[in-house]
Every structure is written in structure tokens, then in C-alpha cells.
């Protein structure tokens, strides 16, 4: 990592974003930010090898031309190796594919369900929480357009 500090802006690495349905991205990027379990992990070329769970959130990347792209991602894993970052997630969406009103509705629904905590035994809170995070990620990505 130390040798990367001086020339990071010029250096690139390969980023793969893969869902069970398809390979969404396989491209060269300058940097990436992955929503890992312990917080956002910023990755530049030469990052130390790492494996960590990914939580629903926003994946940001900066391509070779300095352009920023954002994706709403679901749960999964990130695997950083010497020359490649691989993000395996249940789902990933580009802002173009996101339906804003649907995301907002999902957000409201999840919030309402979470509000019933303790009163209603039928509500699966872990699931409601996960869908809340997913909806938040979607809304954030759309807002960045």
C-alpha cells in the first residue's frame, strides 16, 4: 500500500461487479468505494488483499477518465486481490434502472413495518431492515443523478 500513495491517481485496477443474474461490470477503474459491513471501504490500486461482507448500499467508482459512477447494490461479498476487486452481490442496479416511486414506496413500507417493532410478532424485522437499507441505497443512487 505504501508504494501506492505517490502515484495513485494515475494507477488503475480491474473492478468486477457480479450478480447471480449476470456480470454487470468488468472494467478498469481508478478507485472504488464499497459499502462493506464495517463501513465504506475505499479502494485504490495496490490495496491489500481483503475479503469482507458487503451490505446493501451505494457502490461508487471512478473510471479511467475520472468519471464517477454509482450503483445500488444488495448484500454480498467483496474480494480484493493483487490486481482485481471482485464484488459479488445479490443485486446491483444502475440509476437508469431504478424506479424512484417504487423505491420510495418500499422505503415507506419498510419504515412502517419497523415502526411496529415489538407490537406485531408476524413482522420479520431483519427482513424489513434489509429492505429499508436496499430502498435507501436506491434512493441515494437516484438522487445522485
Amino acid at each position, binding site marked *: 500500500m505504501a508504494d501506492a500513495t505517490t502515484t495513485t491517481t494515475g494507477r488503475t485496477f480491474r473492478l468486477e461487479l457480479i450478480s*447471480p443474474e449476470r*456480470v454487470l461490470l468488468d472494467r478498469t477503474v481508478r478507485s472504488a468505494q464499497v459499502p462493506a459491513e464495517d463501513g465504506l471501504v475505499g479502494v485504490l490500486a495496490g490495496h491489500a488483499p481483503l475479503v469482507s461482507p458487503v451490505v446493501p448500499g451505494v457502490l461508487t467508482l471512478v473510471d479511467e477518465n475520472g468519471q464517477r459512477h454509482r450503483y445500488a447494490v444488495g448484500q454480498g*461479498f467483496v474480494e480484493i486481490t493483487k490486481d482485481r476487486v471482485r464484488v459479488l452481490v445479490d443485486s446491483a442496479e444502475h440509476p437508469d434502472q431504478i424506479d424512484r416511486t417504487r423505491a420510495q414506496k418500499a422505503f415507506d413500507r419498510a419504515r412502517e413495518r419497523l415502526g411496529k417493532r415489538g407490537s406485531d410478532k408476524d413482522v420479520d424485522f431483519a427482513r424489513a431492515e434489509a429492505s429499508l437499507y436496499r430502498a435507501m441505497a436506491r434512493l441515494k443512487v437516484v438522487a445522485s443523478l
Partner: protein
Amino acid sequence: MAKGIKELRRRIRGVKNIAQITRAMEMVASTKLKRLQERAEGSKPYGEALRMLVGRLAGKVESEQFPLLRGNTSGAIGLLVVTGDKGLCGAYHSNLFKTVTALVQQNPGTPIKLFVYGGKGRIYFRGRKPGIELAYPDVVEKIPFVSVRDAVRGLVKRFLAGEIGSLKLVSTRFLSAAQQKPEVRDLLPIDPASLLGDPVAAKHFDPILEPSTEVIFERLLPKYLEMQVYGAVLEALASEFAMRRIAMKAATDAANDMISSLTRQYNRARQETITKELLEIVGGAEALKG
């Protein structure tokens, strides 16, 4: 006689219509099969990456400490059966149901809980012996990964709660475009050998594991199951459409055979009437002469 000819003409027209429909269905099944194969192809990179990660981590952990790799005390068997929503696909469903019935008979006295994908399975198992524990409402053909994921999560929860002691998957394997066969696979407890834990690769694989190797491995295991089931569903769908294509091709061929045999009958009957009429005319003329 004239009525017989009319009847034959009507039947020929009817069979031709059927042949047209079955041919169209054959073509639909064949395009859908192609699309499904593409979908299965698309899911491969994820599956492979996941398998590699699981394999390398499996070489690093003590597998006995993970509940998903251990049995539990429940004697109940959970069966996840993947069926389709539509018929006209040859023996696809009857083969599946036979496999399930055989499994049930092999385990007399053992409680069996059925988890069913597909409308055909819902209809078949309703009111039959083991009864349906849970039927998933999804249209199998359009099933997204997240929906399979939620189903598997529910099953894992039941396993961890001790409601089921093991989980088997009954689905159709796509061996080739011409050969598909129902198969029973063990899902839970996960056989540690199936994870292909590779101690050698694990040794050279030394990343930072956050929060810990155990936590990551524990999260990976259900994901691994989800992917297995998702793959099996895609494969079952490909099998269904392959069998439907074959069944529809057979139906089209049979209809065409029937059309030619009916046409032959029709022509013969028509010829017969003409001959008879001619004979009558000739006979009548002879009689007038005489």
C-alpha cells in the same frame, strides 16, 4: 357416402389446426430454451467466484463448528421440489412426482415436509400423502435470484430451528437437449467435502478477513446454498422447455401423419363416389338404349 366425405374433410381441417398450434408451441419452447440457456450462462461467473471463495475459506476453518455443516436432532426430512407451471411437456412432471413418491416410500415413518415450486406441483401434492408444508407463489419461469434467496433463507431458518433435520432438492437435471432426468440432491446439512476445501490454495490465500474468517464463512454458506438452488431452478426450467419442445415436435409429427392418412382416406372415398356415379350414369344410359 357424401356425408363420410364431409366428415373426413372436417377432421382433416381440425388436425391441420392442431398441427399448426403444436408447431407454434414447439417454436416458442425452443426460443425460450435458448433464452434460458443464456440465463444459466450468465449465472456462471457468480457461481464460480463464490465456489472459489468458499473452497479457499473452507480450508481455513474448522467445519465442525458451523451448524449448517452439522446435522441436528430432528428426524424430519425437508424436500424442496422444483416443478413447472404449465403442462404439455411430456413426462416432465410425472417423472418428478414419481421420484418424490419413491422417496416418500423409502422413508416410511419419517415425517416429510414438502416445499414446492411451481403450480403443477401445488396441484399434484394438494391432498396427497405428505401434504405441502409450503408452496412458493412465484411463477417459476420468471423467478429472480432474490426470490430464491428468500426461499432458501426460510429453509435455512427451519433447519437451524430444528424443524427439519435434513433438506433434499428434487429437480430435473439438464443432461443434454435430448436427455433430462429428475435427481435428488442433498442440500442440508452441507457435506464439507462438497465445498472442495483446498488447504493448499488456502495457504496461499491470505487476505485480511473482516470481521473474521468465521463470520465470512458463516455468511457464505447460505449464499452457497442459494446459488445451488438457483442453478437447479434454471436447469429445471431448461429441462422443462427442452421436454416441451420434444413433446410438441412429436405431436406435430403425429398430426402430420394423421393428415396424410386422412387425406388418403378422403381421396379414396371421393374416388369411390365418382366411380359409383359414373357406373350409375353408364348403367342408366345402357338401360335407355336397351
